[in-house]
């Protein structure tokens, strides 16, 4: 299938097609795992929202809607740049690939910076369970979930940024070609998955049930 097969084909595979399909499938299996990982958090959130609707609405009212919406837009944009990066990789276009990856990194960092401001704000208002918390027990549960869910999401973003830092020198060396791009594609799947998590976190935490006019 490929002239430089010896460079990129691992010994356990018969050909590059098999290797590509295996990598793609492995990544999807890993994403299924990630879905269940966040699924556990979502399930806990749902149960407590059902039990303590009032506290959860009160908690939402403390969250800045405009920052949440802004972050959603930032993350969607980063998903777009990532999709473009994967397309560039498929076409074997090294420099566009590098530029799109860098754009994704910039957007990802923007998201984290905004998130960091939100976290700092929560800390100053005594809404950070475990460190400074001033409020009813049920509100504390809401904020525990808020920090567990967004924190786990942010951790995934940081891991994603780390992976991009690791990918960049390899891209510059020209490791990825139109015949061998599955690391970029699989990283893209990961990044889109992280985006999807936020797509659900945004309405669940910031939007539903709240008074939208209230914002900090």
């Amino acid at each position: 299938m490929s002239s430089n097969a010896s460079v990129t084909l691992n010994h356990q595979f018969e050909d590059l097609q098999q290797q590509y399909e295996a990598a793609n499938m492995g990544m999807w299996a890993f994403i299924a795992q990630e879905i269940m990982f966040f699924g556990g958090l979502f399930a806990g959130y749902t149960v407590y929202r059902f039990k303590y609707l009032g506290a959860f609405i009160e908690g939402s009212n403390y969250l800045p809607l405009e920052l949440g919406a802004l972050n959603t837009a930032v993350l969607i944009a980063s998903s777009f740049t990532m999709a473009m990066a994967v397309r560039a990789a498929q076409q074997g276009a090294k420099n566009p690939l590098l530029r799109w990856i860098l754009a994704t990194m910039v957007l990802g960092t923007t998201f984290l910076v905004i998130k960091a401001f939100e976290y700092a704000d929560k800390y100053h208002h005594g809404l950070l369970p475990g460190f400074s918390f001033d409020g009813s027990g049920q509100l504390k549960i809401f904020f525990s979930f808020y920090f567990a869910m967004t924190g786990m999401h942010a951790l995934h973003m940081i891991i994603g940024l780390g992976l991009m830092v690791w990918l960049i020198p390899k891209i510059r060396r020209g490791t990825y070609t139109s015949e061998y791009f599955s690391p970029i594609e699989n990283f893209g799947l990961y990044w889109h998955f992280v985006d999807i998590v936020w797509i659900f976190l945004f309405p669940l935490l910031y939007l539903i049930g709240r008074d939208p006019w209230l914002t900090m």
Partner: protein
Amino acid sequence: MYVTIVGSLFFLTIVTVLAAFVELGVLNTPLALGIALLKATLVVLFFMHVRYNTPLMWVFAAAGFFMVLIFLALLMQDYMSRDWERPPAEFLL
């Protein structure tokens, strides 16, 4: 095509934020979650290329979501039916 998708995603984000300002009663929550589901579906189908992938990969992509739904359903049936069993009988009525 990616531009169309990202455009729709931005548009849906704006819609969902605006919808929060409109009082729809019980409909606000399902609407917000429905839009989120739609956005996620767009990302999965187009950005993640499932649209062009084999049926097997559709199954892989759906398996996690499906399992979360099962988990939620069996979990919530406990919480939602707990009140049924409060014996309304004897001294309560």
